[in-house]
């Protein structure tokens, strides 16, 4: 079966903003509402709406994803949570240690989305000055060591980037499921890394999936969606989304006639996304139209969908009630 995950807001409040005051004539019992109150609601929505999981993206402009993931895992029973981060955040031993506890606390529902190919300025601001293929070499070592200490007692490693002597987790930290590893990128190095370490290789909608397919790995897709009762209503919503950013209605792009992809989604929560980064492709239309677009991807072998839709709470419910039921029979061919 194809699996559907929602993408969480990079910043926990999801850009929801302040709640306007009520007039004095209206009883107002509202208490302070923190950013993580919003996030908790999104997570609950995803759990209740039947999503397989939620992605807490690595967003340098947003909240830290392992902290976000921990909170979400705590408030859910079934939802998997994918935490996005880059290999420079910690030693692989420590990243694995934090994750081992989260697996213990959540019943093995944490997954990793490793952002390797950061924008260089973003990387330097995170204290990471590695460039080019070295970043993949380090990610390779990072994953090797993390998996090594996870599964072997008395683990020793001597590499270019990391060293461990007589390491490795013991019971009860040992023996949990290692987080499913999500990687991405279409370069030779990226695909080689995925072939060795990924459980899921995550593509963008416009990628040539067939040309770049690491063997033995499930395919994932980041997919912004805007789905409504009918196509007209969806395009009306797309127009509003487009003009809210200060653009004119006349400049509204048309969808690609062949792929149905509309390049009008604003970037949100993508690894290393910068303000002003280019617009993103996604699907717009009735629930049936969007489901048909998703079916095309399933036919191309995609099995894991990271749907992106805002506002987060409302769209998560909407997609759970209206889109996912159309796809319950799909995905038998999924790799």
């Amino acid at each position, binding site marked *: 079966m194809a699996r559907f995950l929602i993408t969480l807001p990079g910043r926990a409040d999801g850009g929801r903003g302040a709640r306007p005051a009520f007039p004095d004539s209206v009883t107002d019992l509202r208490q302070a509402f923190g950013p993580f109150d919003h996030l908790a609601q999104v997570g609950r929505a995803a759990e209740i709406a039947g999503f397989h999981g939620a992605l807490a993206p690595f967003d340098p402009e*947003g909240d830290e994803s*392992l902290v976000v993931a921990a909170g979400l895992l705590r408030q859910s029973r079934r939802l998997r949570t994918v935490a996005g981060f880059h290999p*420079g955040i910690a030693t692989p031993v420590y990243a694995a240690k934090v994750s081992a*506890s989260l697996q213990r*606390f959540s019943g093995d529902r944490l997954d990793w989305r490793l952002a390797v190919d950061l924008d260089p*300025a973003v990387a330097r601001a995170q204290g990471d000055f590695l460039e080019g293929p070295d970043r993949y070499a380090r990610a390779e070592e990072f994953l090797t060591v993390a998996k090594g200490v996870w599964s072997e007692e008395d683990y020793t*490693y001597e590499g270019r980037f990391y060293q*461990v002597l007589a390491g490795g*987790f013991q019971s*009860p930290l040992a023996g949990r499921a290692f987080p499913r590893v999500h990687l991405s990128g279409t370069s030779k190095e990226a695909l080689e890394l995925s072939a060795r370490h990924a459980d899921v290789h995550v593509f963008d909608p416009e990628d040539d999936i067939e040309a770049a397919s690491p063997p033995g790995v499930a395919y994932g897709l980041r997919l912004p969606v805007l789905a409504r009762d009918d196509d007209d209503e969806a395009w009306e919503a797309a127009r509003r989304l487009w003009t809210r950013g200060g653009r004119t209605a006349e400049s509204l792009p048309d969808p690609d006639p062949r792929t149905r992809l509309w390049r009008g989604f604003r970037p949100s929560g993508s690894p290393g996304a910068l303000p002003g980064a280019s617009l993103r492709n996604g699907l717009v239309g009735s629930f049936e139209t969007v489901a048909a677009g998703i079916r095309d991807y399933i036919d191309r072998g995609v099995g894991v969908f990271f749907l992106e839709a805002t506002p987060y709470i409302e769209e998560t419910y909407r997609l759970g009630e209206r889109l996912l039921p159309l796809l319950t029979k799909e995905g038998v061919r999924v790799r």
Partner: protein
Amino acid sequence: MSVDIYWRVGTHGDQPSLRRRVVSRGEWAPVVPGSLAPGVRDGERDDYSYVEHMGDVARASEISGFVGGLLPSFPNTDDPWATAATLARETTTYRFMIAFQPGFLHPVQAARMSASLQRATGGRLVYNIISGGGGPDQLWWGDKVEHDDRYARTSEFLDVLRGVWNGGPFDFDGRFYKVEGAGLPEGLAGQPFPEIYFSGSSRAAIDAAGRHADYYLSWLEPFHALTEKFDQVRANSDRTPKFAVRIDVLARETEEEAWDEIRRGWDNIDPTVLRGATGDSIGWQRSQSFVTGAVNGYRDLEVTPNVWGGFHLLRGGPAFGLVGSYGQVAERLDELINLGVGAFILAGVPHLEEAYRVGENVLPLLRGHDLRIDSPLLEGTPS
């Protein structure tokens, strides 16, 4: 000024008492009938995780009047960042004191995690920064930096962490860390900076504490030794931190009851336990030096009244703690307050039940700075 009193959370399981060194909370020992979190139901292991129990300890601490709890970090403990983030929304005033070693996380990542935790908790994060006990454990973590260098790294780590905390752009080019155009984003920037409890007994640690610590945190030692240590910190820093002490307490209605509890534990000690842990931690070496003379019974480890150096034999962790009646334990804590201690991290086994006991019976007896001491303990102090 009021004294902040924390209560420790066991991040590697807990025993039901000090009487027998058997873990039954958390699966650091085999899960059998009678184990809790996880436990056994209808012959099968249930799906409760140890974090359920840690959450209970945190709630018990909050209810009993502790301002928060220390979450320790060792190779085979649950991780304090993961624990705090998991339990963030399950208490309201409880402060999470996260123990961590600066070498393991990048300071920008530590800043991001901390700021998000501040947002998740409403500013209830506190740091216990450890620069490493050394020995085999450091290499277990994949950390090869030598003892004194670890304090230099800690200094750089905190410089970068503070540098990015209120936003950027912040540049830094040091021995251990380099960043360019760094800074927490809007929304994360400008959260309250966590208070820093700084551990370490070596000269390098004390130097670094003077620069960075809000509180210089020590294990309990005989009071004259603590006084010397505090004097050393005062003498070696322009900016004197406040002092904090981490203390196990075993307090009962009467002194006899308290010592009887110790006796029961002592009678069950496995002799191999006496050959304990090692490390290049100066704190550990110091704690070994306070017991002189033959140890023929548990009272031989009572180095000064109510200060007992055998806790490490009854459970994992430091050696010294207080044993006595509620009133005696409160008096010893008051004496420490008068020696300049501004915060305590107390602990007792089992942590859940003892949080209630100490909160209900010991904390209400504290008189703090009002006490005018005329204590025999403070006389005859070697100078």
